[in-house]
């Protein structure tokens, strides 16, 4: 077995040192009735090429995004990732290291996390960011709980523009009840949030660009929240947008959470991704997740350590701010490397390019009979009202090898008013030919 170094002779020699006759003797603590005496009903070990054949066959049954026109967004976006990013994250020293609990021999990971935290804080316009969360949706749920701790209140108002799956994750973490107000879906960018804010409100949660693609007014909502002593949580699922729209921190957000997948990370069928979380300095002690901080070593040299761990489960156990332990280290590294390659100049260009491609898509789609564009504003994603149920249209276009977008009904079933809505995104990878194919396909299917 290629991964197991011992020969049988070595095993025997080691058993001799231990003073046991067989390895089974070492399992003496296991109740006899629970010890497997026969082999399990599983295939035997295989050479590399056979494993590869098996996996390639499974892979081949999927239609990759790059195999044709592709317009799916809704919380995960297909962007180009520079080849150097994937090379660097496969460096053994990054890939096969553990959480940097021994800082003297983990400065690579720690300095990278410090740089990542700075990039995220600057990108969101906030004071500080943590060293990443599982993904955007769980980061949103953690932000909501953090807001409850900070305000000692428990009412949360979720805008109707929040990604429905994010709303559902918040509901799972918080539990159902009057304390959780989920506003009706707002595909046309409707407001109505401020009317719900009262003295019991811990936080308003909004998303921009929202699930339907609309850019939301952060500033007025921050003012409405703050007037009642509540916090404003801003969710961003397309991090590239922050290259073109104003940073939520500059507009009064108290906590910004985001899905960082767009930068440096592949689609991966939903994971692993990287949750970003940033906040104001005064709220740090209630922030969940790992934090990397700067210090000096015994010789006065600058170095980095995990810090403020008295918030965390391995120190505080049942009194911790969260049960979170593992973060998304390697995905955060990919994010950070890609962001370093982009820099402000590159990110701005990338964001403009995305917006330009989406504008071209919107212009073309508006000419298709049976299509109504619901957005006055968008970054790279928009919602269409079609003249028939969107799920049927998407399926019909699959037959033409076009992946047209996400029918809203997939995330919001049983709501007739949403049945004809289609959410679709363009990125720098969307070509004119892709758009032309979609337009031609839609004309046919909607006719």
């Amino acid at each position: 077995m290629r991964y197991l170094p011992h020969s049988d002779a070595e095993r025997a020699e080691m058993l001799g040192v231990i003073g046991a006759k067989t390895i089974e003797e070492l399992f003496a603590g296991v109740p006899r009735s629970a010890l497997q005496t026969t082999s399990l009903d599983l295939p035997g070990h295989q050479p590399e090429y056979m494993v590869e054949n098996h996996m390639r066959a499974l892979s081949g049954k999927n239609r990759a995004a790059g195999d044709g026109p592709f317009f799916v967004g809704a919380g995960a976006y297909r962007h180009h990732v520079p080849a150097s990013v994937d090379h660097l994250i496969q460096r053994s020293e990054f890939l096969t290291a553990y959480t940097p609990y021994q800082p003297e021999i983990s400065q690579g990971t720690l300095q990278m996390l410090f740089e990542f935290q700075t990039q995220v804080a600057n990108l969101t316009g906030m004071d500080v960011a943590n060293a990443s969360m599982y993904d955007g949706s769980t980061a949103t749920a953690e932000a909501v709980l953090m807001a409850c701790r900070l305000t000692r209140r428990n009412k949360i108002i979720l805008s109707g523009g929040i990604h429905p799956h994010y709303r559902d994750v918040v509901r799972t973490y918080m539990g159902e009840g009057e304390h959780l107000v989920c506003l009706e879906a707002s595909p046309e960018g409707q407001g109505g949030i401020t009317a719900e804010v009262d003295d019991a409100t811990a936080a308003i949660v909004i998303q921009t660009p929202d699930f339907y693609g609309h850019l939301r007014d952060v500033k007025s909502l921050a003012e409405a929240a703050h007037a009642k002593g509540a916090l404003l949580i801003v969710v961003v699922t397309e991090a590239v947008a922050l290259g073109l729209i104003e940073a939520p921190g500059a507009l009064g957000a108290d906590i910004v959470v985001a899905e960082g997948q767009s930068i440096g990370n592949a689609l991966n069928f939903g994971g692993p991704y990287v949750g970003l979380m940033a906040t104001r300095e005064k709220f740090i002690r209630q922030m969940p997740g790992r934090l990397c901080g700067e210090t000096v070593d015994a010789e006065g040299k600058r170095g980095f350590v995990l810090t403020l761990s008295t918030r965390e489960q391995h120190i505080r156990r049942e009194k911790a701010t969260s049960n979170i332990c593992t973060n998304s280290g390697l995905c955060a590294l990919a994010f950070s490397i890609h962001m370093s390659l982009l820099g402000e100049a590159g990110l701005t260009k990338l964001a403009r390019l995305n917006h330009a491609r989406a504008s071209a898509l919107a212009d073309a789609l508006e000419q298709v009979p049976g299509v109504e564009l619901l957005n006055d504003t968008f970054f790279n994603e928009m919602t269409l009202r079609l003249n028939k149920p969107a799920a049927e249209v998407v399926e019909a276009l699959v037959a033409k090898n076009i992946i047209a977008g996400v029918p809203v009904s997939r995330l919001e079933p049983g709501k007739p008013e949403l049945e004809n809505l289609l959410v679709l995104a363009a990125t720098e990878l969307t070509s004119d030919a892709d758009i032309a194919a979609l337009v031609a396909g839609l004309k046919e299917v909607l006719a």
Partner: protein
Amino acid sequence: MSMNNQGRPTAPANDAAITTGAALLPDEPLLFEIGDTDHSGVDLPDVEITGARLGNHARKSPLDLPGLTEPEAMRHYVRLSRLNMSIDSGMYPLGSCTMKHNPRLNEKLARLPGFADIHPLQPVSTVQGALELIDELADWLMVLTNTSAVAMSPKAGAHGELCGMMAIKAAQEARGEGHRKVVLVPESAHGTNPATAAFLGYSVKSIPANANGTVDASAVIDALGPDVAAIMLTNPNTCGLFEPEVIEIAKAVHDAGAFFYCDGANFNAIMGVVRPGDLGIDAMHINLHKTFSTPHGGGGPGAGPVVLSEALAPFAPIPFIRKDGDSRVLVEHGEGTQSFGRLTAFHGQMGMFTRALSFMLSHGGDGLAQGAKDAVLNANYIKARLEKVFSAPFGGQPCMHEALFDDSFLEGSGVTTLDFAKAMIDEGFHPMTMYFPLVVHGAMLIEPTESESKQTLDTFCDTMLELAADAKAGHTTRFTAAPMKAPRRRLDETRAARSPVLKWVAPVAQQEAAE
């Protein structure tokens, strides 16, 4: 709390920004000290936009994000990487963490476009291979654990704990037993266990370990009552021992109407050898990043699927896969089911699933069982070679996949567990887990995994014995001053926490802020 306005450290960037340090241990400036906002390592067309569709939302403030060209970026990150120790560069015997070899085949396969370049919300008819892969992995997990269901979406071990405990909560509420508000957690548990229970509003009752480092069924029975919802028990436990009374404990827990959550962090000791379902567990998370070798990546990402007993299966989170003739469908909504809800936006850690399945297929059932046996053999070999000198608090019995020592052998030497760990760094080894579990004084928890050769284990044991002899001989400086050969000497963690600097700020901006 005093803060320094998130500026640079009071100490200047020292030599780091000026010199490159020693030949093979380069100091590396921060990205922000190398790059600037005009440089970029990505060539993109500069397109004009009208801005009409941005409303009044266009960005006005600068981002202060420096860029690097590709050669600069390569050098920056390669240099940073060299400041890390990793499994590929040396033995990394961190107890409870299962730092085993990460096969590169798995990296290659996870990057196939049919896995890496598919979207979680593209039509289900276009991702049948992905669903088949998830099902195949789920089947392996169920066979290895003898359970009837598995929730695949949890993102990591602690997320899996949350999943399992939410299923337990939902099951009890469905039975009209929502009044059960206590969760039993042994003292030796990982911190995530009590944190998870508290997160869900349970109060935590601690169960003591006995003199052998395990939990007595009688201690559990004493603590059980009508208010107890569940026990969270790690098995093999964090002392590296199999709980000998686990079957009795499971029975007592069930008789009291409670559930048995098993922390599966130490599944590596028993994969293919003991099926947790045979022990009576109701839920157990499996850290794919430990047992099935999806890389730790410097702290993640992980993956924590949770196997469930028949009693809990109906409460599993959405989404889940259902077979429909020859094809598979994704059940993404809980209506009409007893699912407790959604734990994450999408379907879980697909990138980890591909790696874990590749690991399983490579090993086969036989290789996995041999791996567990070798992991146990290696830990016992270390224990046998060290225990004449090191103090094993629960000696006199074989251990499972990790060997636990306390610090009594260092008594009077002036050397602490921390000092000893730091001295190991100078000998080229990553330290073992220190001061955990909490049930022994100055714990040293050594988990070699099955990946280490006898030769490496011998070098490790020789080194440990030599260090112990030196500590006892009173050569304390080697320990208290360690590490001396690492990229950094000991770091001032108190200072980091007292006045947190969590972000880099340009010196000019810092100066202006001060004025």
